[in-house]
């Protein structure tokens, strides 16, 4: 393969690091691993003996990466938008819920990657982190958590969306003998309620695409789609959308 055809995209998120290699307009290799203090070393080890034309990094660690590796820097907003358009050319809106933030991006129909975006501010509620903490509290793995929530129509009333307060609320619900599945469903609903106003602000023409790890949770996607009264498209590897976009940004 011609070295000039190989592009690398990195997405250094708060929870996981994603790496994507693209050549000839296709993803040819990817990798996902936990973000740790020595993520740069891990990235470097995986890059050994690869001959890239160019690379680009997105995510919280983008500057750190560009200081250590020869690569461009791009924000996760632009990268996610580029990735989404590549994966689903009919997409008009992307909802990306990652470990520590969530964002909604309206895609442009011209040459620009996006026209507008919204992000949640300074708060873990409405992010993957919230669901993760709550799953652990209920004694579920993340997969079980989403499945359990799907398996029931029952739900309970939760008054708080704040991670700290919801935690104590869940504990007392458990203590009062509440069904774990019903609590799981209520927690999913609360995140969907939180994301809904961010997304509803945009007039979405085209597909609504979901990116980020939370897109793997079928219950969440279902609840949000119901609330939006629109189907949501989930691509095969939703966590990779931003890294794919970073590789595309490298190629631009």
């Amino acid at each position: 393969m011609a070295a000039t055809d190989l592009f690398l995209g990195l997405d250094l998120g708060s929870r996981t690091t994603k790496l994507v290699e693209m050549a000839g307009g296709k993803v040819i290799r990817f990798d996902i691993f936990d973000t740790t203090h020595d993520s740069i070393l891990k990235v470097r080890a995986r890059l050994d003996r690869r001959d890239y034309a160019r690379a680009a990094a997105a995510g919280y660690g983008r500057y750190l990466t560009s200081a250590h590796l020869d690569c461009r820097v791009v924000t996760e907003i632009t990268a996610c938008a580029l990735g989404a358009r590549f994966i689903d050319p009919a997409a008009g809106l992307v909802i990306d819920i990652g470990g520590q933030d969530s964002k909604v991006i309206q895609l442009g129909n011209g040459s620009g990657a996006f026209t507008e975006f919204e992000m949640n501010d300074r708060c873990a509620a409405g992010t993957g982190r919230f669901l993760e903490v709550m799953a652990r509290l209920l004694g579920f793995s993340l997969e079980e958590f989403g499945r359990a929530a799907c398996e029931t129509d029952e739900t309970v009333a939760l008054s708080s969306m704040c991670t700290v307060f919801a935690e104590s609320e869940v504990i007392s619900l458990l203590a009062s003998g509440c069904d774990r599945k019903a609590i799981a469903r209520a927690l999913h609903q609360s995140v969907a309620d939180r994301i809904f106003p961010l997304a509803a602000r945009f007039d979405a023409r085209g597909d609504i695409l979901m990116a980020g790890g939370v897109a793997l949770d079928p219950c969440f996607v279902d609840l949000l789609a119901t609330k939006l009264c629109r189907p949501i498209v989930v691509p095969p590897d939703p966590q990779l959308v931003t890294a794919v976009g970073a590789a595309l940004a490298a190629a631009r």
Partner: protein
Amino acid sequence: MAGHDELLKGLGLDVELHHKIFDSIDRIFRKTVLAQKDRPGRMAYFDDVIHGAHGARVQEIVERRAAGDKFIGTFCIYVPDELILALGAVPMALCGGTSLSIPYAEKVLPRDICPLVKSTLGLALSNTCPYGPIEDLAVGETTCDAKKKTWDILAAGGDFHVLEVPQKKGPRDRDLWHEEVVQFKVRLEETTGRTLEPEKLAAAVRLMNRKRRALARLNELRKEENPPLSGLDALVVMQGALVDDPLRFSERLEALNEELEDRVRRGLGVVPAGAKRIMVSGCPSVMGNWKLHHLIESAGAVVVCDETCTGTRYFSALVEERGGDLDAQIAAIAARYLTIDCSCFSPNDERIASVVRLARDHHVDGVVQYVLQYCHTYNVEAVRVASALKEAGVPSIKIVTDYSEEDTGQLRIRVEAFLEGLSR
């Protein structure tokens, strides 16, 4: 700063805490403003104004007071400085731009109040602001609710005068405001023990107009294809305008403008070709607060206009120089100040139109609407501003933030993404 310890102690301040707060302002100043490369040589004076605000300038005012002049603290650009100057008194804006004093305000104020008000009150309550003890009169105004009610707290500490700024701009409101300016004159005459003389008022009007013209000239230079001055430096100049002696300030600014004109002639700009041109619109950034401008410019863009109270709102429109009759002069002053398009007015169509016009005149690529957290009027008005800009084809983003540094990472992403979105 340490050189003025005796002075500060003499004023009864908590000198240690004072140093802690002002060292932090200084650290931020060095990291942002002073870290810029190739600054115009004559910016050195304005850097000194910032440094001297808690040393040399205090000393200067202490000396003026010893000679019989009065010192008047203000908190809003609605206060007509002309009247104060004409009575030989020293006006100065005392708004707080530091996060360090905020905990002292939060001891009494609710948390959900804008950082500017909290910082200002915190400086007063922590006994660290050198201007508090030397103030002969403080002047508040009825613009936003947070300020209005804070005046009630501050007024307990000494002489306080509140100017009623109307909320509309109809004929009755004009009359009310005119009456308020007349009352303010009476109060100032009491405080200073002097009588306002028409010639002195005319001279003060000319001086303030000279200052405004110099600031407007600087603003013109920012329209250049490659501006000769960064947005951060323009902000430093504006912050200086609020605290420095107006005559000396005008002279130094006129000199800076000459240097900048020369830079333009020689093609010396502050950014590489293609840098995005940004206008900041909304809440003021007072001394100590360089956060947003630094964020925008360290991402490679350049701020070419400030539609704020530390920007165009301060120097737009001159007072008509009528001379002669005192009443006519006061009427001209009142009329000029009521053109200020603060978001506390309803309706405020003048501001919406002005934002769009400035965006065009300065050839901006995008507008950052700056909202200090919990400032409801600018936050809500941002909705209409954004749609007017959209209609005019100018992209905009709203940034809501306080004085702390904890959200820098988030803000950086938003600002950078906004800039990336402008690169079509």
